[in-house]
């Protein structure tokens, strides 16, 4: 399908150039189309994940979850969307207005930019820098600045504590995510996502070295923490800080945090898939005599592989979220600095040795 998609894009391009003379108009229309495409995908994924989580969490809790709006409750999220879009945005009295309204933008920007850097299927990708991994790491950490701004600018004590905790979150899991990716960069020899994809054509990275498994586990924990979810939802900490950093946000401004959270969930799982689990590459057995099996695997479209694996990681993340209690802030720092950081540093060293000696 991905090739068909590219075909379709080419057709649109031809159609536009044949009908419109001014080249800049064509470009503009294309830009708008691309942008809208991204936005739609982004929104749809967020909506899908919201209902997905609500259903899955219900099943974890021996409940049914939404089932009265539409078949199996799938229109539940649209109802939520309609409602939240036309809910009042409360004008606050004592806040820092500029930062207050900038915060959701920064959150959304951070996650959309990361989203733009993903690869969704063979040949379907947006931003593809030669420092792709680096880019993803860089822009994905913007969101947390939005969280801090939101907490600070609200002039609310709960949200301020939430903001401070999100600071702890940054200094905790940024580093591990970074170092676990570095292990893959050593193995793959490139920071470009396309190159990394190509390197996983036969065998996914996860099966290439035992140390990628460690890296994957560390990455999953760190990525999970960066989404401010599950056992790492300290900045929100419902039972402690009522709603944490976004306690003063109402209506759609709160909706942006909500959407951003779910998209970050997807994005982090997608990065994990791309970097460790072979992204949209099919599962191949690199042995002689397995060509038949490989051909069957290849017959499955690449986007199915991509989204299937991503969903698997998301499911894992939900499972963790709906099982564990929240960490305390010193446990959080301890987990990072006394467990994950030594492990990832050692992992890099071992990975380098592996690459130098085995490969």
């Amino acid at each position, binding site marked *: 399908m991905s090739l068909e998609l590219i075909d379709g894009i080419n057709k649109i391009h031809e159609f536009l150039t044949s009908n419109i003379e001014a080249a800049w108009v064509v470009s503009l229309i294309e830009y708008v189309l691309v942008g809208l495409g991204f936005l739609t995908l982004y929104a749809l994924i967020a909506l899908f994940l919201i209902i997905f989580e609500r259903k*899955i969490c*219900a*099943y*974890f*809790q021996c409940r049914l979850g939404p089932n009265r709006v539409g078949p199996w409750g799938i229109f539940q999220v649209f109802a939520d969307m309609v409602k939240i879009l036309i809910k009042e945005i409360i004008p606050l009295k004592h806040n820092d207005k500029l930062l207050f309204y900038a915060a959701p933008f920064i959150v959304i920007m951070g996650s959309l930019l990361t989203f733009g850097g993903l690869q969704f299927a063979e040949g379907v990708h947006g931003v593809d820098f030669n420092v792709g991994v680096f880019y993803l790491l860089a822009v994905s950490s913007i969101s947390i600045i939005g969280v801090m701004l939101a907490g600070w600018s609200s002039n609310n004590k709960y949200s301020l504590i939430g903001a401070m905790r999100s600071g702890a979150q940054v200094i905790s899991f940024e580093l591990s995510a970074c170092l676990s990716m570095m292990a893959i960069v050593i193995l793959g020899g490139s920071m470009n996502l396309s190159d990394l994809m190509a390197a996983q054509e036969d065998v996914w990275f996860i099966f290439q070295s035992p140390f990628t498994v460690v890296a994957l586990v560390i990455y999953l924990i760190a990525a999970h923490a960066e989404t401010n979810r599950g056992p790492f939802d300290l900045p929100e900490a419902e039972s402690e800080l009522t709603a944490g950093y976004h306690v003063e946000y109402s209506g759609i401004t709160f909706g942006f945090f909500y959407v951003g959270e779910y998209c970050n969930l997807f994005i982090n799982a997608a990065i994990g898939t791309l970097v460790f689990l072979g992204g949209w590459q099919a599962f191949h057995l690199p042995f002689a005599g397995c060509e038949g099996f490989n051909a069957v695997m290849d017959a499955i479209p690449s986007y199915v592989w991509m989204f299937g694996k991503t969903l698997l990681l998301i499911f894992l993340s939900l*499972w963790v979220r709906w*099982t564990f209690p929240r960490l305390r802030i010193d446990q959080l720092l301890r987990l990072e600095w006394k*467990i994950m950081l030594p492990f990832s540093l050692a992992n890099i060293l071992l990975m380098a040795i592996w690459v130098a000696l085995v490969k």
Partner: protein
Amino acid sequence: MKKYFTDIFSGIWNLLKGMKITGKVLVSPAVTECYPEKRDELQPKERFRAELTMPHNENNEHKCTACGICAMNCPNQTITVKKSKITDENGKPKIVLDQYLYDIGSCIFCGLCTRVCPQGAIEFTNNFEHAVYTRSKLIKQLNKPGSKKVEVAKPAAPAAKPAQAGQNEVAAPKQENENKQ
């Protein structure tokens, strides 16, 4: 050093065991009862107290004598008994029930009224669907319009009290009853 590693691995092991529990629930069926969908099957148990009613027989008759013991025993004046004195065809003065008002919005379902009722004229049923938009609608008249007290052959002694357990807290000596009125 050894403790550090054993701690980590036992920790992970315990986390995984916890995940096994939730995973098991994930694949087992939900315990949710779908209330509005299966409304007919989901009636509360028989003894459940959800609404005070006054049973009427097919002739639109009830057993209430308008004595007001229930109203007196109610801890928070949920029941109001409005009665009037008339003379019946034999020329005897007689007390009849005009309105038996019951405010479900303040009822605490303690069951004291049904226990003390000497006639067994009121009872709790388990219809729990009472939500309304107007508070005044929560005040219900229990005796149906035009209903009257069932005429039974008068037993010699008031021993006809239903031999129900717990009805021995019957309060209300006569005079106090009248005073209240």
